[in-house]
């Protein structure tokens, strides 16, 4: 089956170029150059006052990554929890708040998992990603769904959307990558201009790896403890993603974006590296299908309307062939459905002052036919009323969000109802068009997930939402020189104080296999994010980009003064972390270097030597070259990831791959 798919793709690879020869194309080089210039100027028309960190398309293209999870570690304030390998779960936790507090927004609409409340970023391949941006607090945009305002921070993933010359109608990019541990990837991104209104974009991506990477198993934390060289087993991954987008632009005031998304994956779960025994029979199948639409209509100069729609179906199948059960295996299936509608309208009251109303209605449903709780449902209504004053120097953004959630499950006949009001306020000022200072305060919460409520058996009904409070000061300096080939520098500093109350934690009930989930404890968070971006045009046609981030996070448990964990750093939050990206672009060759650093962390709440996870660093390089064929452009890239072969773990007993090589080819048709 898999082989067949591969063959089909190879056929596509051979056939598609021939078709495209028929297309008359302008000089692609000049087109691309234009694109870069346009995006540069748009970005800097007004200086953004949000506290955010982003990775732009240049960086995404230059560094070799497979999923968005691999990219997220370059964002300031983000800790990626990575279970290793391509199929390893990758979730983000921003500024010590825990992964359930981040909204992940894919092309304008939230991606959700109501069962765990965490989005696995390894499911989003980076091959069609244009930009990812993390907004601390929220984005100031008025025309966004209420759900995008309902989290402590929002992680926006935006996919590539093609631009066309007036003469072009068809554009295709083919990409293939091969690498260590039998990694192979084939991708096609094909845009077609149907007529002056409609454009379509098809993106297909297929990944496969054996995941058999070597690692060093250490039988203890001391330097002289025994070690053995092992190979990661049952770590294979196969993933297929297809996306079909339709963009309709009826006139300057009305447009629609439609997307159909399908994802399928099968992977082995290699489990933690248990001493003296590793033999996992666990496998996981995932299937995701969704349809979404974003319709925007500008009624007049004051009134603008947008509508977001989404329908999602997801299926997860967990199977353990080595479970010691009566049946001799364990097999759990979970079905999730979501129906989502948002209506948002904004109204310009006067020149710089606007308001908007946004309402989301969400229906969620989880079924698990072979567990003791077979279904749970949630209906949520989120309404946000926002104000924005922006005269390009002074900015004031405020909103109030009202959340009503009603849950029903097999467990109880009476529905569980939660209501909440959450405020947000932000002030910003820009001096001399180069220095920005802004402040935000956000009070928000996360609902208990279906797992918290229904799959842990005891005491569920008393569970309250987990509350977070954030206070953030943002300082940014931006300077750009000249108009064409501008050298620019951008430095930003964020100082923040966060607090988590009523943290939702799981505690063992009677024994280790029956857990109950309770609200307990407080976390106190103080931190700094520092980011710099620098671009210079050097002699010999060298275009230099340097981007760096540094984060300091002091995230401590302040639940109980008597506890041994009082003022201990919360597990898996490094005090120091950072990254560096350097790109040297020359017409002849392109060189990129990335570095990421994560300081010491603890795997458990007690900050003892025994629970210490050592700091690690990752150096990676990519060398790529554009080759101009007769009519097409080609790009060959060679990468070495984890150049120094650092042996490290992000999550305890989940070793990460050591040195890896990848080669990739891209053809632009």
């Amino acid at each position, binding site marked *: 089956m898999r082989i067949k798919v591969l063959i089909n793709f190879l056929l596509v690879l051979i056939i598609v170029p021939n078709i495209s020869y028929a297309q008359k194309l302008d000089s692609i080089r000049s087109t691309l150059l234009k694109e870069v210039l346009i995006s540069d100027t748009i970005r800097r028309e007004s200086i953004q006052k949000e506290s955010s960190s982003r990775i732009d398309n240049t960086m995404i293209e230059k560094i070799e990554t497979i999923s968005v999870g691999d990219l997220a570690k370059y964002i300031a304030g983000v800790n990626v929890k990575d279970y290793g390998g391509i199929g390893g779960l990758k979730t983000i936790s921003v500024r010590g708040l825990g992964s359930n507090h981040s909204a992940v927004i894919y092309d304008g609409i939230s991606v959700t998992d109501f069962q765990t409340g965490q989005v696995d970023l390894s499911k989003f391949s980076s091959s069609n990603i244009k930009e990812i941006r993390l907004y601390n607090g929220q984005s100031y945009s008025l025309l966004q769904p209420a759900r995008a305002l309902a989290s402590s921070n929002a992680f926006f993933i935006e996919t590539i959307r093609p631009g066309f010359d007036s003469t072009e109608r068809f554009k295709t990019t083919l990409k293939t990558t091969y690498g260590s541990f039998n990694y192979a990837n084939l991708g096609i991104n094909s845009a077609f201009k149907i007529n002056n209104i409609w454009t379509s974009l098809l993106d297909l991506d297929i990944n496969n790896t054996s995941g058999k990477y070597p690692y060093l198993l250490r039988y203890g934390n001391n330097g002289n403890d025994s070690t053995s060289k092992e190979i990661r087993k049952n770590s294979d991954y196969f993933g297929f993603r297809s996306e079909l987008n339709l963009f309709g632009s009826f006139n300057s005031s009305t447009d629609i974006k439609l997307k159909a998304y399908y994802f399928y994956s099968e992977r082995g779960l290699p489990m933690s590296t248990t*001493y003296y025994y590793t033999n996992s029979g666990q496998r996981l199948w995932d299937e995701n299908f969704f349809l979404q639409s974003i319709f925007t209509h500008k009624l007049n100069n004051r009134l603008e309307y947008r509508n977001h729609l989404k329908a999602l179906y997801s299926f997860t199948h967990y199977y353990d062939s080595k479970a010691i059960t009566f049946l001799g295996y364990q097999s759990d299936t979970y079905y999730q459905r979501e129906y989502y509608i948002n209506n948002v309208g904004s109204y310009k009251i006067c020149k710089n002052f606007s308001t908007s109303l946004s309402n989301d209605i969400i229906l969620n449903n989880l079924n698990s036919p072979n567990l003791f709780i077979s279904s749970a449902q949630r209906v949520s209504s989120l309404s946000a009323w926002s104000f924005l004053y922006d005269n390009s120097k002074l900015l004031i953004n405020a909103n109030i969000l009202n959340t009503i959630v009603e849950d029903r499950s097999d467990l109880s006949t009476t529905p569980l109802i939660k209501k909440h009001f959450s405020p947000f306020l932000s002030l910003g000022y820009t001096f001399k068009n180069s220095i920005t200072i802004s402040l935000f305060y956000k009070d928000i919460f996360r609902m208990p997930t279906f797992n918290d409520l229904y799959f842990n058996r005891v005491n569920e009904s008393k569970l309250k939402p987990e509350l977070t409070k954030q206070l953030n000061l943002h300082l940014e300096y931006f300077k750009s020189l000249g108009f064409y080939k501008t050298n620019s520098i951008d430095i930003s500093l964020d100082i923040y104080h966060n607090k988590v109350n009523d943290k939702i934690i799981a505690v063992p009930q009677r024994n280790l296999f029956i857990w109950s989930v309770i609200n307990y404890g407080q976390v106190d968070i103080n931190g700094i994010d520092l980011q710099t971006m620098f671009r210079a045009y050097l002699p010999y046609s060298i275009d230099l980009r340097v981007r760096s981030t540094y984060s300091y996070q002091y995230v401590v448990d302040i639940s109980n003064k008597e506890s041994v964990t009082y003022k201990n750093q919360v597990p898996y939050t490094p005090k120091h972390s950072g990254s560096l990206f350097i790109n040297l672009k020359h017409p002849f060759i392109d060189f990129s270097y990335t570095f990421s650093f994560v300081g010491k962390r603890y795997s458990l709440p007690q900050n003892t030597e025994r629970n210490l996870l050592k700091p690690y660093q990752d150096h990676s390089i990519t060398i790529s070259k554009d080759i101009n064929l007769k009519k097409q452009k080609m790009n060959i890239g060679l990468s070495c990831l984890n150049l120094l072969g650092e042996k490290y773990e992000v999550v305890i007993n989940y070793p990460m791959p050591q040195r890896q090589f990848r080669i990739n080819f891209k053809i632009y048709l």
Partner: protein
Amino acid sequence: MRKIKFLLSIILLSISLGFLSCTDDTDIDTNYQEGNLPKGLFILCEGLYGNNNSSLDFYNSDSNSVVLDLFNKVNNQGLGDTGNDMIEFNDYIFIAIKESATVQVINKNNGKLVKRIPILNNNGINRKPSRFAANTSMLYLCTVDGYVLEINPFTLSIGRIVKVGRNPEDICLSNNKLYITNSGGLDFNSPIGYDNTVSVVDPITMTEIMKIDVGDNPAFIKELRDGLIGLIVKGDYSNIKFKTINTLTDELVDSFEIPMLNFDVLDKNNIVYTNVDYFESMESKIKIFNFSSNTTNSVDFVSTPGIINQITAPYGINISISNNEVYITDARDFITSGKVFVFDLQGNYKYNINVGYLPSKVIIRN
């Protein structure tokens, strides 16, 4: 995925419940020197699932100090994941490491590893070693995959095996027969549900003689006196019972509805049991119960005031008549390191020891 989730939930438990600190804390012996061990206690700590942090700690009673993770310090390797039980035989201590599919055999005098015995089935899959019983010539190990294995304590090799019920939890010897509690705990959320039997095995022929119906989810089992064994039957945890079986007739004798988590035998008529009221007060209970009486009335074991409040989650209980000591291990919040509280047989508090994660079992070295 379930296991990943389990790990996740452990990690999620990033804030611990708070507890009163105790006085008379022991010192941590960081200057431990290899060699013959002094008098003291071996303490097995289960560790947290998936963390490879099971430990065998050693309490030096002369210097009142603890060597944490003695096994690692002596052998330059960790004990493994989820140390479930240990038993002594002559100069050896046998430690069953459930997730590591291993029985570690160490020399009791110096903590050195003598042999590692893999506990795998014919397909190389972990049987999950659970608990031991011993007579004068043989060790018996029950495994979660539903078997009892002979381990020859002289040759350190696995002998015959016999199939019993689902997911054995504990094993004991009485009247020259082996009694194994079949919990069926791994099927708790499937249609078949818990197992509800105690298997009776003849150790001479290594065959299962019969199964006794005892009720859903039987757990810890111990010989109370000659010809009588007691066991905890947990059911769905809301109606926990203590039951007794006459091993001459292999019939149930008594059933008492007493919530308890663990117990050990104090004398011919009394057990000491532990419990935590997780649903209401969160209070720990350590009580003496007379199983020869016809009531479920229990009396407090701990006689020193102010001590019971310091024990958060009594986990294991080991009574040593010869040493005149009772060891109550405290798992605390199941995510931070535990303690062992030591009492005399009259329930007077003596001292406590800071140890590793989820301490469960104590063996005395004289």
